[in-house]
């Protein structure tokens, strides 16, 4: 991509060269390209290498190998130039808990060399924008989780960065806090900021990102838009819970998919199958069950879980890259 905000080629990183670490690479030849002004989600389970990737991109960690550029600058050789152009929202709120919200923003503004007056003005502006004006003088340790996250986000936007990294921005937040952060991220995109966010939630990637890279064991195993990925992973799924586990076998035959695509959970009397046409599948299954005289306790359509995406993208033991 000619106009890339982030380019990662063959990135490798193994922790603990001189002791510590388990010798397993955190990044194992990871490739990634993020277009300018887009939102890109890096989706993967714990330990997939998401945080390592973000820390390398944000110049906090040196890669062992690979060509890695952010906003047109090499993260190792031109770290300073990169730092001028990025914002970082880490997994844990990177704030001074003892200081007030305004004091935090002023501190980071001064360290961005805005000067005293502009740092103060910028702090007020951001407090206003993130709806924190009333609590600006309160110590951060008295903030709620959602407020803390918003202040953290404000702190990473002091200089209107070209590229913003969000490392699991909503982990540990309640649904309301999550919605607040999502709204903030959406409002950023209008401003032309490139956003790279990591997440464990397919739904979050789906909601926010233009493109998604699925990572596992330090590599990208699938890459595409949310629709492309969903199509590749069978898209939505239908879950059917029967009243009587004895009917499970008969019900499998009634689902509009090949028999081996259906997962059966006898304990929960549950059948689950991928569907392409949501409504047709739902009405078809309801009718078929009725005609067969099988009683269902619950029937629901849902998006595939991350586990199911992984099950589809990776073989049980052969985890090789699958192009979408």
């Amino acid at each position: 991509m000619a106009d890339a905000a982030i380019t990662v080629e063959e990135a490798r990183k193994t922790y603990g060269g001189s002791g510590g670490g388990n010798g397993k690479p955190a990044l194992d030849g990871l490739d990634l390209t993020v277009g300018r002004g887009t939102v890109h989600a890096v989706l993967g389970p714990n330990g997939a290498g998401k945080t390592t990737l973000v820390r390398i991109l944000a110049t906090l960690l040196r890669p062992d190998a690979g060509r890695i550029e952010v906003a047109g600058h090499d993260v190792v050789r031109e770290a300073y130039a990169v730092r001028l152009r990025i914002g970082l929202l880490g997994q844990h709120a990177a704030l001074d808990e003892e200081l007030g919200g305004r004091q935090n923003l002023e501190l980071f503004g001064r360290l961005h060399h805005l000067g005293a007056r502009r740092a103060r003005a910028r702090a007020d502006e951001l407090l206003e924008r993130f709806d924190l004006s009333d609590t600006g003088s309160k110590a951060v340790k008295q903030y709620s989780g959602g407020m803390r996250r918003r202040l953290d986000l404000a702190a990473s936007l002091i200089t209107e960065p070209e590229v913003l990294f969000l490392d699991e921005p909503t982990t540990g937040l309640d649904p309301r806090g999550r919605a607040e952060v999502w709204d903030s991220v959406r409002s950023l995109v209008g401003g032309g900021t490139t956003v790279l966010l990591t997440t464990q939630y397919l739904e979050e990637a789906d909601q926010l990102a233009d493109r998604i890279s699925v990572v596992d064991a330090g590599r990208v195993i699938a890459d595409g838009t949310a629709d492309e990925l969903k199509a590749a992973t069978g898209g939505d799924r239908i879950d059917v819970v029967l009243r009587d586990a004895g009917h499970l076998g008969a019900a499998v035959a009634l689902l509009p998919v090949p028999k081996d695509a259906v997962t059966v959970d006898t304990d929960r009397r549950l059948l689950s199958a991928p569907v392409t046409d949501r409504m047709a599948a739902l009405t078809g299954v309801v009718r078929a069950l009725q005609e067969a005289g099988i009683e269902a306790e619950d029937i629901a359509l849902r998006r595939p879980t991350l586990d199911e995406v992984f099950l589809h993208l990776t073989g049980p033991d052969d985890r090789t890259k699958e192009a979408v």
Partner: protein
Amino acid sequence: MTTYALTDSWTMTRRELARWGRQPVAVVVNLVFPVMLLLMFGYLVGGGRGVSGEYLDFLVPGMLALTMAFGLEGTMVAVTQDLNKGVIDRFRSMPMANGAVLVGRSAADMLQSALGLAVLLGVAAALGWRTHGGPAGFLGAVGLLLLFRFAMLWIGIHLSLVAGKPELVQAVQILVWPVGFLSNAFAEPTSMPDWLGTVVQWNPLSQTATAVRDLFGSPGGEPGHVWAAVAWPLALLAIFFPLAVRRFARLSR
């Protein structure tokens, strides 16, 4: 980058001062704690020998040196907190002079320790303690104490960066007590068993206390001991300053 080194260091120092403003009680407790120790040892332990007499003159330099040693805890608590809150990550991802994080820490801790010395000296003076060493001796003693604190500061930064865990801070908070007491801060090593006396004499804290006693003209001072109170902290700094700086740079490994 380097053009901002001074500005950024000053900003980081101001950050610490702003934190004081937010926690006035903690600041006062920090200042009062050594005073409490002085009173406790002066009245309880030294009670038999009289607070106003020779023991006070002996005790005050010891307490000053002990206060500098205990400063280690404060440094470690602050550095560990920053590391674990991820705020150091934010500093490192910003276009600021990297060393400013450590310079700000040092400046604030030294300022707090200087304040601690002033308060302790004020209380001692109120109890009747006087220096007999003249202004030059007095300033020299304060200089030696701050040099000792500076060495403790960099040991604290290094240990915190290496371990990075609040558990280590707790361990050190407990361990400073035996190290503090295995010194001549409260009693002459001559009053101890031989082996203990030897340990106590080699304690860097004892070196500083003895030199300060000498410069104050107090009992327990040994002429010509100043060099040891200069050499010990410098030796510690020669080891721990580069280690801490290297460790900080290596946070990116």
